[in-house]
């Protein structure tokens, strides 16, 4: 596994250097948020959010607890609606369509936008069934196709070599880090365009965290990734752009280099240097 991973990352480094010499291609905007407000009952949790999210980039969202970063992430796949008292205004267009419009089917949205949660949440089923769940609910029944999807997804999450001989074992027997990568593979099985990650490494040890970070670097070649993180070093390491949230507002949203080395707003600088939060 680790040799495969190292190889993949070496390849990636080479490729990145090649890319750097080429002129930057304009990336397509996947999500465009305009004037988004969100209330939990009386609490104004998101205030006039404007930000765009591009394909093949990692967008990190940082900020202290309760700043609205997770809420914003869950608005992107309307998971936030599981809380019944939520109200929103403004719009989020996904590929040109307003997803906050009630006529936009959440099932459609969530098929195209995968999510990885803070705590690994595999189903109490076998490894195979965990991955096959997504394709199955979307109507794929052919065993051969399912087999291929399972392999492709596990390979995509760089966990195939570890798990290929125990596909029928219960997913609960895996370590925390493996479970989280399994959840990423499960998300890939639906072939989404965007992957939302809600503090995916906050419950993991440093080694597993590194694995996930390397994986994110791989995945961004094909997916738009939005990652909420408490860990500022993580945001600095893996993201292309960073948004700093504070009290439900975006204080600053820019290239990660810029946010971390030369923040425009004083509060961003204070937060990044650890003066609060």
């Amino acid at each position, binding site marked *: 596994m680790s040799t495969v991973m190292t190889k993949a990352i070496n390849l990636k480094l080479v490729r990145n250097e090649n890319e750097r010499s080429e002129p930057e291609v304009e990336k397509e905007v996947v999500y465009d948020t305009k004037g988004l407000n969100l209330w939990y009952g009386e609490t104004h949790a998101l205030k006039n959010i404007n930000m765009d999210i591009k394909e093949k980039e990692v967008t990190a969202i940082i900020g202290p607890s309760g700043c609205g970063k997770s809420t914003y992430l869950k608005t992107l*796949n309307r*998971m936030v609606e*599981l809380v*019944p008292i939520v109200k929103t205004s403004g719009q989020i267009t996904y590929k040109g369509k307003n997803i906050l419009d009630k006529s936009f089917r*959440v*099932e*459609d*949205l*969530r*098929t*195209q936008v*995968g*999510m990885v*949660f803070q*705590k690994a*949440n*595999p*189903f*109490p089923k076998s490894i195979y069934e965990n991955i096959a*769940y*997504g394709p*199955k*609910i*979307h109507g794929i029944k052919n065993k051969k196709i399912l087999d291929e999807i399972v392999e492709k997804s596990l390979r995509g999450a760089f966990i195939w070599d570890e798990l290929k001989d125990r596909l029928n074992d219960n997913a*609960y027997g895996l370590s925390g880090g493996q479970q989280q990568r399994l*959840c990423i593979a*499960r*998300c890939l099985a*639906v072939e989404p365009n965007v992957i939302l990650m809600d503090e995916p490494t906050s419950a993991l040890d440093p080694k597993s965290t590194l694995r996930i970070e390397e994986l994110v670097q791989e995945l961004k070649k094909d997916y738009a990734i939005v990652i909420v993180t408490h860990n500022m070093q993580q945001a600095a390491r893996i993201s292309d752009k960073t948004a700093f949230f504070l009290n439900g507002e975006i204080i600053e949203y820019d290239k990660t280099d810029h946010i971390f080395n030369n923040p425009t707003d004083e509060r961003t600088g204070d937060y990044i240097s650890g003066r609060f939060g």
Partner: protein
Amino acid sequence: MATKYMDAELVGKRMSSRVRKNAGWKGLFFASTLFGLIVLAVLLVRIFTQGIEYINIDFLKNHLSTDASRAGIMGAILGTAWLMVVVIPVTMVIGVGTAIYLELYAKKGKLQSFIATNISNLAGVPSIVYGLLGLTLFVRALEFGNVILAGGLTLALLVLPIVIVAAQEALRAVPGSLSEASYGMGATKWQTVRRIILPAALPGILTGAILALSRAIGETAPLTVLGIPALLIPFPEGIFDTFTALPMQIYYWTIDASLVAEYANLAAATIIVLLVLLFLLNSIAILIRNKFQQRY
């Protein structure tokens, strides 16, 4: 030196009385437990010594008879079995369906909590009241007569609240993170309920259902209100036949023991059969719970 508030001498003096008190309370609690156990043991010993010698193949497979030496309880066993044929599907479908609606579909609000509270209240309504309901609704208004269908539906109503509450608790115990994962992949609510939530809650639901079933098997009061006889009637062959059931048989034999003393022994023998049946059902419930218990 700082002032000391704990007077070592005084503490020492009180110590032995505190320890004595502790032992006294322990003894009291143990005695409470013992009381229940002794009563149960006396009951079991009395029933078994009285009834065990009357249990044999003939007793289990014979028709009812006024002649105590020839009387059997096959009719009552079949009647109880047929009752379960009605009770199980009705309670499972309506009970689990109601629990799914209340837990997963209904909007959390005043109406939902009002319904939930009243279902818990219904679980406490005396069983004879359900008997009256069954008599009015199934026997008279719907003109079923005192047949298995009427008895089964009455018992189903009686245990429905228990099944609903148990199923609700089992559904609530399924972690939200599992359904979130399912919704996150674009699953509909029904797909999530059927493929993730129900399988995870099934052991809890089944345990509750089986315990409710053993309650239904032992119920006598509602059946007496429905006018279920223990007469010389043919074995029931379907849900529209008249019937008798094990608890009814025990009830009538106990009453008639003043006429024929041996009936009391037959009642004891029938109680053993019923107890064994209940014991088996409870064991199945425990087995299911242990086998499928899972950590999330």
